């Protein structure tokens, strides 16, 4: 029982990185921009977070600094893809290379240092002391509640219950029609891509300030790419994206438990599970549920640059 509670606790903790990064990607893709730079942004956020905390001893400042760095790099990416309208795949790969390389270069000085201050678990009076669920659900750091409850509900409301959200989705589905209706297509794409990038970098800060919590080269380990894949699997919906991230947190946690309990499987083999799982997740549903394709489809204008005069 205790093992199971620990497993669920770790699943929430591990899935948080994926959930936050995936939510950011949902925003960008819903307005029609594929951001493949998530992996690099997470790395940048992770290093920024740990560097700031080592200097200021404040995890909140660390998170804010990471968000800011992500926002700035996101603006550069949006400048290239939305304003200049360069190829989104190339720019995204470039951002991943820049982010990963830069983070590893800067991060060498902080490699292996444990974060001196982290987002620790907060106890909720009454709930945290409950048996089982207390440990599994109510003894997390504050970011977990924000990432799993506050943010997805807010984004769901924003995207599906407001006029602003309708405009967002219109920009992603049919930018020409949105433009004709007077929606500022470029502004929507630019700012939501930048905000999504900030969230990816925030996921990096979460990684080094709440989950691992230290920086080392390769600590991101493809989480950015898994997050991009989860968005596809979740049909570009915030609530489903968070649920999928939690499922992946569970797979990761299972690997940890396996290592801790000396299962007769090598650690490297267990570490393959999340990647193989992701591949299965994006291939199998397409084959199994042909009818779901339309509901789960990507925004029609995804990755296509919008030229007003070529309408």
């Amino acid at each position, binding site marked *: 029982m205790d093992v199971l509670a620990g497993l669920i606790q770790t699943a929430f903790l591990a899935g948080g990185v994926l959930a936050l990064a995936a939510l950011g990607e949902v925003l960008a893709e819903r307005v029609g921009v594929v951001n493949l730079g998530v992996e690099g942004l997470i790395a940048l956020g992770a290093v920024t977070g740990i560097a700031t905390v080592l200097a200021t001893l404040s995890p909140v400042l660390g998170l804010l600094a990471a968000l800011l760095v992500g926002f700035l790099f996101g603006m550069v990416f949006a400048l290239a893809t939305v304003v200049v309208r360069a190829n989104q795949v*190339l720019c995204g790969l470039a*951002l991943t*290379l820049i982010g990963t390389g830069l983070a590893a270069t800067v991060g060498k000085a902080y490699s292996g240092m444990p974060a001196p201050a982290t987002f620790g678990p907060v106890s909720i009076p009454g709930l945290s002391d409950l048996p089982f669920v207390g440990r599994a659900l109510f003894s997390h750091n504050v970011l977990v509640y924000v990432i799993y409850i506050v943010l997805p509900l807010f984004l769901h409301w924003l995207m599906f219950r407001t006029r602003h959200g309708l405009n967002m989705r219109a920009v992603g589905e049919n930018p020409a029609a949105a433009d004709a209706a007077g929606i500022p297509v470029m502004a929507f794409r630019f700012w939501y891509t930048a905000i999504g990038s900030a969230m990816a970098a925030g996921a990096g800060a979460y990684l080094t300030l709440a989950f691992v919590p230290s920086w080392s080269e390769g600590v991101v380990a493809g989480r950015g790419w898994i997050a991009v894949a989860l968005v596809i699997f979740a049909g570009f919906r915030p609530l489903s994206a968070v649920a999928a991230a939690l499922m992946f947190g569970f797979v990761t946690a299972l690997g940890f438990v396996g290592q801790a309990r000396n299962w007769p499987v090598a650690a490297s083999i267990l570490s*393959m599970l999340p990647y193989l799982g992701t591949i299965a997740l994006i291939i199998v549903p397409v084959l199994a549920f042909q009818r779901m394709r339309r509901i789960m489809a990507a925004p029609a204008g995804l990755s296509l640059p919008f030229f007003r005069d070529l309408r």
Partner: protein
Amino acid sequence: MMGWRLQRLPSAKPRLAFLARAVSVILALLVAGLVTAAAGFHPFDLGAEVVSSSFGSRFGIEDLGLLLTPLIYTGLAVAVGLRIGAWNIGAEGQFNIGAFCAAGVALFVPGPVWMVLPLMVFGGALGGAAWILVPTLARAYADVSELITTLLLNFVALLLVYYVATGPWLDPSGHALATTARLPVAIPEFWGIVHWGFPVAVAMAMALAILFALTRWGYEIRISGSNPGAARYAGIPVRRHLITVMLMSGAIAGLGGVMEVAGTVGRLQGGISNNYGYLGIMVAVLARAAPLGVLASALLMAVILNGGIILQTQGLTTNTVLAVTGLILLFSAIGDELAHYRVIRTTAQRA
């Protein structure tokens, strides 16, 4: 009143596109220079050191040849995929698997060299193709983007190589940590320490160039890539071509792994791919997916990569090189788009 206006052309002029490439490389190096200068280095001294150590001596040129070889293979792998509009971001993984298969054959198949060596080459190419099989079929039959599936398999391949190199295939002599024993069979040397993998790569680039430029097959691939709908209408078997080309792409990357493990490194170890797969994307994009262009852009990348290795003593790392290549890629993408524009004169009558 006379005015000026920007007009976007449907396709960029080749000469302008080439110019945009050159400018983006220079700009990216300039930005990298400024950043290193801001970090307290002297970019011109560093640049001079890189050039003199790369080209100043025969050893330098041989080292460069060793770096160039894998970049040609991975560059060709990505370029071949791009020809039909497929993004093989998984060259890194296929390279690892190629090395894995070649090492497996060399370590466990007894026999004379003339028999084992071709088996290694064949096994590595087959392994690379097998590694891209699932993403290929998913793209061809279920329209699942190959971008993410090929990429995620990179992590699996890296973990697999790391696992066998530290576990079941670990050097039994106990002298080496985290690598297999020295492979009993090696790719013979061609010039100095540069092995036969290099001329084979160059020959392959030429063969591919001819294949794409002069054969019906190459023509059909190009049409399938630029307009699948029209190709299908014209009776071109687009799906079959897609599958063939993607498997070919994987096989070429796998071959690169064979040459690296059996020619350059001599042992299978974790991280043997050294980001060559990711740098191959750069090489292919800079070459605009032209096989002969790959030779030139691979040389450029090899010099940059070599620069990173030389400058390690100065406190820079290969990761810095990765960031610089990312910068080149970003500028190239922007330059590509800007090359679509031309400035035209507008006359007064319109107003």
